[in-house]
């Protein structure tokens, strides 16, 4: 209460609940906002609306039976989740896979990265008010990728494609031709997005200097993925702790400067370009061979535990698996990138306007499926 307020007429902060059903919260997320006019004074996220207790279910499924569950974690980038899980199990079992399988995995994972970033871009532009036009363009591109995946494994969203020891099915010559055509089709489209959205005056005014995440805060909160790179930290698991055949492929790691929403968005656009480069190189060097190693469907690791992390489109996905000699995992912990990314949100929304919280949340590209598991 200051001098402008009297006993009968005073202002107070009001609590507003954004969610769990809201057009912009990217899933069932509830944000409790304390507002003072249009300015936010405090924010408390409530999660757990999509908790399906996957980790408990994992204790009752064999390693192969759990692969379809990992699809449903980050349902927009299912191939990458599958990849993270089977690589963690292969590390536990000390299993080597064939070269062809490694290249195929890289191609598929990068295609899915593009598909995921397309959704992030389209929904981010939509949240800022560019009502539906960028979203439709992004979904038109994503449709092409999803059709390719449909031909490979029969599914459009939750693929269940990776297996322990390789992949489910081979890529035929026809599919590889289609992927090459897609690369040629996609390159000019990314330039289109730059023209339409990235350098638009209104878009810049809405997203520059909003939600600035400093380097130290990002590392301390264990923020990973394009969010970390947007803050200026050049860290990408594909370069710094290479797995599969990423060390043989040439690509750049885009880094932002200021750590604001625009930088994170720009990093994603650049990553799409780099993914196209990776896919091109991987297709050229694709060796012949089997796509799976001959292991059974049921695996019995020794009493040991391991932790393995991969670079998902949203950050670093980690699996901590404890084996106890039986066919079931004793404990399977899923470290999801969006969980740690979302934790930093209350720090970034102090004293910004309501319209900006939508911008910050959109630029973080979180997905509730993997936060709640």
């Amino acid at each position, binding site marked *: 209460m200051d001098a402008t307020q009297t006993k009968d007429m005073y202002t107070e902060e009001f609590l507003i609940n954004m969610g769990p059903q809201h057009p912009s919260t990217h899933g069932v997320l509830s944000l409790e906002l304390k507002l003072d006019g249009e300015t936010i004074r405090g924010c408390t996220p409530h999660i*757990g609306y999509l908790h399906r207790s996957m*980790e408990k279910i994992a204790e*009752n499924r064999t390693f192969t039976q759990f692969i379809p569950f990992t699809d449903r974690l980050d349902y927009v980038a299912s191939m990458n989740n599958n990849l993270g899980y089977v690589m963690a199990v292969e590390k536990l079992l000390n299993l080597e896979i064939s070269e062809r399988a490694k290249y195929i995995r890289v191609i598929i994972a990068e295609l899915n990265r593009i598909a995921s970033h397309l959704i992030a871009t389209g929904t981010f532009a939509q949240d800022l008010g560019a009502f539906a036009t960028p979203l439709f363009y992004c979904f038109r591109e994503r449709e092409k990728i999803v059709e390719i995946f449909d031909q490979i494994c029969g599914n459009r969203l939750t693929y269940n494609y990776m297996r322990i020891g390789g992949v489910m099915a081979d890529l035929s010559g026809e599919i590889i031709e289609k992927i090459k055509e897609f690369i040629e089709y996609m390159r000019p489209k990314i330039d289109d997005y730059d023209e339409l959205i990235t350098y638009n005056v209104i878009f810049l005014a809405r997203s520059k200097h909003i939600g600035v995440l400093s380097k130290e805060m990002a590392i301390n909160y264990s923020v990973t993925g394009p969010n970390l790179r947007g803050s200026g930290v050049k860290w990408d698991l594909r370069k710094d702790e290479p797995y599969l055949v990423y060390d043989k492929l040439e690509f750049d790691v885009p880094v932002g400067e200021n750590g604001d929403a625009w930088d994170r968005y720009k990093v994603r656009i650049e990553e799409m370009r780099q993914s196209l480069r990776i896919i091109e190189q991987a297709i050229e060097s694709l060796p012949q061979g089997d796509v799976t190693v001959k292991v059974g469907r*049921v695996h019995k690791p020794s009493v040991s535990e391991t932790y393995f992390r991969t670079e998902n489109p949203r950050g670093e996905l980690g699996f901590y698996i404890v084996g106890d000699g039986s066919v*079931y995992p004793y*404990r399977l912990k899923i470290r999801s990138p969006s969980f740690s990314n979302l934790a930093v949100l209350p720090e970034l929304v102090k004293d910004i306007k309501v319209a900006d919280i939508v911008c910050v949340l959109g630029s973080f590209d979180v997905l509730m499926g993997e936060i709640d598991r």
Partner: protein
Amino acid sequence: MKKMRPDEISAIIKSKFPQVTEEAGTNYIIVPKESILEVSQYIKNPPLALDNLHCITGIDRKEKIEVVYTLYSIGEHHGVTLKVNLTLEDLNVASVSAIWKSANWLEREVYDLFGVIFSGHPDLRRILNPYDWQGYPLRKNYSNPDFIAKPRM
């Protein structure tokens, strides 16, 4: 790109804190629960510079509950795993959320699923389950009328 091997890192930690031990056959460092705060403070600073607490896992080993801290260093490209063993009667350990902010939500999750109390945590309440849930679901002896385990092979 300086990268210390896991045995080098554990040698450094053991030399500074004689009370920690190493798990047999691995490089996981077992820290007694009283020393977790000072060990954490030490390893966060250079030369180890482990500034990224990546994951906190709870494991129910029936007679004890293990809390596993997976840490990495962005500058030095190496990592280490710490373990704290807690007996079922005394499920209390100091919270490291003042040292690594990522521990805030990660410890809430371990509390929610296992019932481990992190003393000094600014806001210890459930995170994935509803706030008024009874019981700790990921414990091996968790029973609930709705939870029916699949018959094991």
